[in-house]
């Protein structure tokens, strides 16, 4: 802790200096290959590409050439509960649980090299670099807080989401094509939820945040998929009646098709 204090101070001083100067030294210009992913019957996931470039201006220190990038993609937020089973009276039952509040249903973190090489642990924590540092608010009794990365519920939550490919991180996914031009892929498996996705791009140099920018894309149902989804939500009774009628027709048709006697 004591050893890290000067670094933290340096970081704070730099942050203050950046906030004070109105004109930033660098600017990030980014674009996603598709801002509107449409879900059709044959949709089975997609891979988007994020392109961008670092624009320098007169104020940019000439010595600054090595940039680091961290891209965070977060999907629509939802409340989730993680439960833990324990053995009671010879059977395994859910005994303890934690509620995660408004956490991203999809979360992907991509960078050009390991976080430890990009910034100090303090900056990593403050800038939420990596799944271990992302803010996941839990309700613990009456309190709302995030906990240490080693917390059993937190790590189980991240592990389970990662197993379903909904949370992921890759510290070599961002590639610099030239010293200022970069790209990264955003894989979206078919299971990812429908909704709006925020993409946050943070630029680091010499272990500190230089600038950041945001963009977004959405995954929407169109055509048939959209028709079914909206009808089910808005005309529940009619939808149910049609489904039930469909069931009876299917049953009746089968008995005619397969009638032998």
């Amino acid at each position, binding site marked *: 802790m004591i050893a890290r204090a000067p670094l933290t101070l340096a970081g704070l001083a730099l942050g203050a200096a950046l906030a004070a100067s109105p004109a930033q030294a660098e600017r990030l210009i980014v674009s996603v290959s598709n801002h509107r992913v449409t*879900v*059709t*019957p*044959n*949709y*089975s*996931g997609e891979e988007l590409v994020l392109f961008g470039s670092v624009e320098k201006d007169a104020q940019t220190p000439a010595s600054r050439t090595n940039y680091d990038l961290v891209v965070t993609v977060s999907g*629509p*937020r*939802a*409340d*989730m*509960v*993680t*439960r*833990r*089973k*324990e*053995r009671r009276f*010879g*059977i*395994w039952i*859910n005994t303890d649980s934690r*509620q995660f509040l408004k956490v991203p*249903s999809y979360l992907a973190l991509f960078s050009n090299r390991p976080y430890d090489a990009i910034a100090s642990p303090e900056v990593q924590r403050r800038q939420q670099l990596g799944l271990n540092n992302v803010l996941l608010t839990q309700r613990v009794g009456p309190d709302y807080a995030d906990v240490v990365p080693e917390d059993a*519920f937190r790590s*189980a*939550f991240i592990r*389970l*989401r990662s197993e379903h490919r909904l949370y992921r991180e890759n510290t070599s996914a961002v590639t610099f094509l030239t010293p200022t031009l970069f790209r990264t892929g955003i894989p979206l498996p*078919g*299971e990812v939820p*429908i*909704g709006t996705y925020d993409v946050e791009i943070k630029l680091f140099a010499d272990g500190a945040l230089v600038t950041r920018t945001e963009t977004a894309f959405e995954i929407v*149902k169109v055509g*048939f*998929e959209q028709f*079914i*989804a909206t009808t*089910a*939500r808005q005309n*529940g*009774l009619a*939808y*149910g*009646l*049609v*489904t*039930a009628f*469909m*069931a*009876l027709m*299917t*049953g*009746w*048709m*089968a*008995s005619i098709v*397969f009638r032998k*006697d």
Partner: protein
Amino acid sequence: MQLYLPIADIPVNVFLILAMGAAVGFVSGMFGIGGGFLMTPLLIFVGIAPAVAVASVASHIAASSFSGAISYWRRRAIDPLLAAVLLIGGTIGTALGVWTFTLLRSLGQLDLMIALSYVILLTTVGGLMFWEGLRAMLRARRGGPVARRKPGSHGWIHGLPLKLRFKRSKIYLSVIPVIAVGLVIGFIGAVMGIGGGFILVPLMIYVLRVPTSTVIGTSMVLTLVTMVFATLLHAVTNHLVDAVLALILMIGGVTGAQFGARAGQKIRGEHLRLLLGLLVLAVGVRFAIELVIRPEDLFTIRETGGAG
């Protein structure tokens, strides 16, 4: 062939779902059970959210039981009066069950209650049916007369008032136990989220002494009506019925159910009961193992709401 399901929100392999529908349909046609207790876990295994699976399975069961019911009707293997009286009890039971379900949920530990009742119910019913089927088979093997209990030898049920003649089944029985059986099935179905056919069939055979010839067809009618209402209820209250998923399941299900019904007619009654007993017992044991063995992962995640 991948297809994106509009309500379940995931892509699935159409042929896999078709095959699952056909397999469960075969079993349901053969034994006259809905098969929800088999289908729902299968869908959850494929990755469909449990709530969507339960809601969509209801319409799948409606389709396969309707196709099964038609072929049983042609064989005059349905007792309409018996079905109607059972339905009266079933309706009351469902209402009581929904009320109990809400009560249990407010107390917490609903999942455990459901798992425990599955284990107790399935292993007991399955075990009894298996044992009875085995004994009947052994008796037949030994060449002795298949000693069906003499009519009238089981006292109190036949001593009840309000007797009715169920012509198709050739039984003369008080409506009180029939309504009671319907009530139990409706109650269990609503609390545990299953059609209850696999409990109804043995109850009809052993408690009501309905001949095996009309048991399956009649139980299918009950399943059909319950599941049509369940579909409507799920569609109106939680909008989670996936019509596309349901249609694929149905097409597989009705095909399977036709072959199942044919196979069921060929198999001798006691063999059929033995097989059904074995199946129910196996599912019960599976649930029991799940409770007793240390789970591979002690943690589970469930979405509880928020911006979706």
